[in-house]
Each structure stands twice: as structure tokens, then as C-alpha cells.
């Protein structure tokens, strides 16, 4: 039970708790904030996985942008400040069952995979951030997906402005 493992377990536990609270809590704002907690935990996982860049980007994008957007949306789509009534619909039982089945199925599938219990080789001493930059911007690597993603973002920008614009 090494230190890193303890850290991982704590993080994982908090992630799962936050996630469950997120899907079950009554208040939408709380749900959004629980999402923030979850994402933060994921960022910690990224750090554990020695991907600091992704960790920081996770915080920037998800917590800095997406979560905020969610909170805005929550506040823009309510007449009264507090939610009333149950937040789960009538299908919650079967939904829960299906979720559980999915998890079990995935777990089973994974356990049948031989690389399931592999351990990470120690990271070669390279500047992953720089390499990531090269990979993203070199034509023989991932330049095209990168550009496509940027185009997608642009399209999303225009589209969201269009659909949510207040036509009077």
C-alpha cells in the first residue's frame, strides 16, 4: 500500500462519491458543483498518470469554462431559485439496473483482457509537453485532427449563438 496508491484510492473514492451525488442531488447547482468536484478528481488522476498538461487543461476547460457554462445554464433555465420535487424521472429503477449491468459487463470484459493487470514502466525522462506540442502540430502526426477540432469548435460557436439567440 504505497503512498501513491493511497492517493489514488482517496481520489477515486471522492470521484465516485461526487459523481453519485451529482446524478442524485436535488439542486441543479449542487449537481453542477459536484461535477466540478468530479472533474477535479479526474485532474488529480491525470497528475498521477504523469500528464500534467492534461491535468491543467482539464481544470481550465472543464472547471473554468464548462462547469461555469452549466451553472449559467442552470440559472438561466429556472423561474424560481430552488428546484422542487424529485429530480429523477420514472425510469430511475431500470436506469439504475442498466447502469449496474453496464458496469458489470465492462468489468467482466476487462478482466478477460490479458493486459488488465499490467504496470506502468517508469516514464522516460522526456518533456511530454513539448512532445505533445510537436505531435499536435506536425503534419505526419495529428495536425489534421487538431485542425478539424478547431473547425468543429468554430462551428459549435456559431451554432450555439444561433440557436440560443433571442429571436424577437
Amino acid at each position, binding site marked *: 500500500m504505497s503512498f501513491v496508491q493511497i492517493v489514488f484510492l482517496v481520489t477515486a473514492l471522492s470521484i465516485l462519491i461526487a459523481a453519485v451525488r451529482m446524478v442524485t442531488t436535488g439542486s441543479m447547482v449542487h449537481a453542477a458543483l459536484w461535477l466540478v468536484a468530479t472533474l477535479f478528481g479526474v485532474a488529480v488522476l491525470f497528475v498521477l498518470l504523469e500528464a500534467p498538461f492534461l491535468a491543467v487543461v482539464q481544470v481550465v476547460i472543464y472547471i473554468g469554462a464548462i462547469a461555469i457554462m452549466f451553472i449559467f445554464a442552470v440559472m438561466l433555465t429556472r423561474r424560481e431559485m430552488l428546484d422542487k420535487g424529485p429530480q429523477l*424521472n420514472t*425510469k430511475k429503477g*431500470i*436506469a439504475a439496473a*442498466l447502469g449496474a*449491468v*453496464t458496469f458489470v*459487463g465492462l468489468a*467482466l470484459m476487462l478482466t478477460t483482457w490479458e493486459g488488465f493487470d499490467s504496470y506502468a514502466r517508469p516514464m522516460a525522462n522526456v518533456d511530454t509537453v513539448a512532445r505533445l506540442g510537436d505531435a499536435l502540430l506536425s503534419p505526419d502526426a495529428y495536425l489534421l485532427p487538431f485542425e478539424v477540432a478547431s473547425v468543429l469548435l468554430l462551428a459549435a460557436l456559431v451554432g450555439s449563438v444561433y440557436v440560443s439567440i433571442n429571436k424577437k
Partner: protein
Amino acid sequence: MQTTTIIWLIPLPPLLAFALIVLLTNRRKALSHSIAIGAALLSFIGSMVVIFRAIGLPNFGEKVFESSINWFPTGNTYFQIGVLVDPLTAVTLFFVGWTVLMIFIYSVGYHNFGQPRGDHDQKGLAPHGATLTDEHGHSHRVPSIEPMYARFFAFIGLFAFGMYTLVVSDNLLTLFVGWEIMGLCSYLLIGFWYAKPSARDAAIKAFMTTRVGDVIMLLGIAYLYWFTGTLNFRDIFNNPQLMHQLATTTAPILGLSVAGLIGLLLFIGTVGKSAQWPLHVWLPDAMEGPTPVSAMIHAATMVSAGVYLVLRVYPLITAGWEPGMPLNPTMTLIAFIGTFTAIFAATIAVTQNDIKRVLAYSTISQLGYMIAALGMGAYVAAAFHLVTHAFFKALLFLGSGSVIHGVEHGALHTGDHADPQDMFNMGGLRKKMPITFWTFLIGGLALSGFPLVTAGFWSKDEILAHAFDNTHWAIFVTLALGALLTAFYTMRQITLTFLGEPRTEAAGHAHEPSRTMTWPLIILAVFAIGIGWLGIPEGLTGGAIPNWFHEFVGGTLLEHPETLPFNPVPMLISIVVALTGLFLGWMVYRNVKAGQKDPLQVALPAFIYNTLKNKYYFDVLYTFFLLRPVWWLSETFSYLIVDKWAIDGTLHSVGFVAQWIGRSIREYFDAPFINGFIGDGSAAVTQWFGQKLKLSQPGRVQSYLVGSLAFIVVLAGIFAYFLLA
């Protein structure tokens, strides 16, 4: 620059000008005509450069400028198109370049550039008058600018492209392309004032008539290609055994040799294009177009193209014929048609009153001279007359144009509606428009072959001499008579137009047109005189002046045509004839008063005069024998009998039967069985199912998700069971 490159480039500028004007600049008048004239100038410069390089070479006839490229693949080889400049092309280029440029410039003035817009001009009509008011409040009418100014320059640009293509092309196909382009342009330009019914009809007439010739010409081309496998002139004509083969093989039709038949077919194309009898009827009506068009198409270039074609295929026509031998059938026919046309058109020209129509008929007859010369095998003489005639006839047409212009101006000014083209409304223009007078006089004298000075004399004399020396008496006499008539009607025209006293107000107020119109006249006049001196027979001067033209153009042919021994008789005859004609013309018409009848009408028996006046009733004949039957065929036979009765009747009966069958099927099978049972029944079943199934479509996204996921889970479970177990 490489000479062949220049030759390739010569036709292009006018085409570019056409595109530019049509697409971009058609709203800008000045820009449009600048572009057109600039293009003409470029082509002109190109042709001149080529010509001088050609003249520079000794015995140019053997090593000519030619270059060709692959156009489209034919089987395993390519069809080659290319350019060729040999002596004949050179001289043709010479007069084409000059006349085209001159006419372009002339058009600017003729279409009243710089004049105000008309009061009620409308597109498709000749420009109307415009009222000008000067500062003193005097208002007077002036000619107004052509409403479709830019369009005109676009059209003549395209026309020039066609002409240059025809001249420089080294094979019959591209020649034919240029030929047809010119046909189209002639149609467009004759019908330029399309709001005039007469112009419309004339355009259609010209197009149709020439088409008759063109189709047959195309047959000839096809035949030639089928027989020889090429259409390149030099490949065929400079290939003795091929020529011999052509000459000796007999064609399936009327015992002609293949060469003769092909030559004949091609010649019919010429008959259409050069308005030879019997396809001459379109040319006089073509005078409905603007005068520069008449000058360009119907004097200088297009009709010359017909003769040019015959000159090109001359070796075919004369295949197997040596000078001195009796003419072969093709040549006989050609000679006959030429001669007949010459005299025939001359007689008509005598009685015409429209200044342009007179010239039109004289054109026909002069072309007849050339054709006749070719028929007799006088190659060089024909070419020579072609060149000189191009110059002086262009000059005459432009002159008549400026006369009409002047008289029109007078008519507008005085407001009397005299027909500005009728020579009997003119007279005394000598003082009003001196430049026009002198240039027109020069042209006229050249046309009538005024001795020793003018170009026309030398060329026409060469033809006559040829006829005389080869003892074609019939031809000689006819042509001499034609020369007499030519001189006569030319003098008649000059006298009626310029001499004496003005017969109408309009003529009284006519005045000299703008410089853009007079300068081309002057330049052309210079050529109308000077060009003839290139071909003075050596016999006359004892070789002091070499007959350069003969040497040069003669080089075109494989075996050089020998120069005739000089013979004074025909020359004297032609001198006498010309002078007599001129004198008669002057005598008869020198004092015609206003409103007086044509003295000729008094002199000649009525029916002859009317026959001539009505052009031997050729239009009537054509209307009666060709148009009426066609109308009857289409209106009565095809429409009423065949269509209405036979075809429609059959169809109707079939339709009725079909209807009956259909009705019965519908009543006894369709309605009860198909509709009732299958149609409605299936619909009912479907509806029932739909009612039951719609419950699975709650329209709630999450329900769908749950459903699909559940299905996936089940499926995965099944797979897992079968895979793992």
C-alpha cells in the same frame, strides 16, 4: 518573332476584340471601337510583316511558311491543322489586311460616332435624326449615333477573325470553319437593323442561299478526305502521283474524274458564297445591311473568299489538263457560269437606281470575270483581278456609303423624305463632297477599266487577253460586251450621282462626312490606281517593267504558268470598249432632270427594260418554283393530309380502344379488387398495427436511450453466453 508564330497569331486579335466587346465593354462606345480597331491594326501589322518577309525570299513558291499541330486523333494518326502562307495567301492577306482595317476605321464615322443620341432611335433600326439646338436657339437635325454601336464592332471583329482564319489556314477544314463563321457574321450583319422586315428577310435569304452551296461544298470536302485521307493543300497538290490518281480515277457521277467531281462540288460552294448565277439572288438584298458591311462582306472579303477557294483548289479543277488542251468538263462549267454571270449581272446593273444595288450587281459580274478566268485556266489573271477588284470595289462601296451618308444628312437637314439611296435623288454632289467624288471617280474608272492608269484595266485586260489567245471566242466576246456594260453603268452611276445639278433638296444640302470616313477612301483610292502596276504585261513594255505579280503568284502552283505572248488586239478592244461605255454613259445621263424617267426606259422596249429592272424575275421564279411547293408541301400535304388525317386519325383510334379497355378494367377489376381489397384492406391493417405500435414512440429521448441500451445489454449477454460458453 518567328514568322509562323506571327501567322498563328494573325487571326486572334479580332476574336479577342469580339469577346471583350461582347462580354465587357459593350456599354462603352469609344472603348469598344478602340478595341476593335486596335485588334484590326494588330492583325494588319502581323500580315504586313509576314508579307514583306515573304516577298524578301527568292522563289518563295517552293519554300513557304507553314506550321501545323495535331488537332484531334483520327484512328491511329492525328488530324493536323495549321497555317500556311504561300504567294497566293500573301497577296490575299495584303488586300484583306488593308481593306479590313480601312473599313473598321470607316465604320466609326459611318455610325456617326460623336453625334448626339437620336430623339426616338430604337434598337434594330438605322439611326434616326437628332435635333441639335445651338446657342442662338436655331435647332436643326443631324444624324444620330447608331443605337447598337458596340455590337456592330463586335460583329465585324468576329467577321475579320473568320476571314483571317480562312486565308491563313492550310487545310480545307479550318478554311471551311472560317467560311462558316463568315456566313454567320454575314447573316448577323445583313440583319443588323433587324427591326426592318426587309433586313430580316435579306439576312435569312443570304443565310439560306449560301447554305445551299455550303452543304454541297461540305460534301466535296468529305469526298476529298475520304479519297486522300488528308485535307492539307500542299500534301495533296504537291504530291504528283496522288494528283495523277485523282485525275485518272473516274467518279461514279456523270463520268467526271474524282478531281473534277470534287472540284465541282467545292465550286458550288463558291457559287453560293460568291453569288454566282444561279445562287446570286442574296447579294443584292444583302445591301440592306450597313454600308461598311456591304463593302466588307459583299465586295472586299467574303465574296472574294469564294474565288479564293477556287484559286486554292485550282490544281484539283485543272487536274490532268494542260494549257492548250480543250477545257475539261468542270472547267467548262465553271467558265460558262462565270461568263454568264458576268454579262447577266452587268445587264441588270444597268437598270438599277439604288446606288448600292448597282454596285452589288457589278460585284457579281466582276466575280463572274474571275470565275470565268479560272474556268479558262487563267490562274494569275483571276488572282490579279481578285486583288484589284477587292480594292476598288471596297473603295466604291465606301464612297457610295459616304454619298448616302451625305444625302441622309441633307434629308434630315431639310426634312424631305427622299430615299437617300436612289441615284435619281442625287446629282451635283461633285461640289458638295469633293473628296468622295474624286475617290469614287477613281474607283469607278478602275472598275470600268480606264486604260493604262487604273488597276482594273490591267487585270481585266489580262483576263480578256487570256480568252483571246486561247481562242475561247464565246467567252471573249461575252466578257468584252460585259466590259462595255460595266463602263456604261459605272459612268451612269457617276453621272447621276455627282455630275449635273442637285435634283432634290437633300442632295443640295449634302456635305462631306467626317475624316474617319474620307481618309480610308483616299488610301483605298491610292491602291485602286497603284496596285495594277504590279501586273503590267511584260510584252507591252518590252520587259522594262517586270510583271512582278505574275512571277510571284505564279509560284504558288507546282508548274509555273507561262506568261502569254503579248497581243495588242485584245488590249485595244478593251480600251475601245471601256472608253465607249464611259462616253455613252455620260452622254445618256449627263442632263437628267428631277422627276424625269430613266432615259434607258425610254430607249429600250418595255418588256426588256422591265425584265432587267426585275432582275429577270429570278426572285419570282424562286418564289414560284421553290418556295410555293415547299409551302404547299408543309402546309397542305404534311400538315393537313399526313399529320391531321393519317397520323392523328390512327392515334385517335388507338387511343379510343385503349380508353375503352382501360375503363372496363377499372370498373370490373380495379375498383372492387385492387382498391377495395388490397388498397383499403392493407391500409386498415397498417393502421391497426400503427395504433398498437405507436405506444413505443413516446417521443422522450431518455426512453429511447433506455430501450436501446436494454436491447444492447440483452444482445451483449447473448453473445457473451455463446462466446464464453
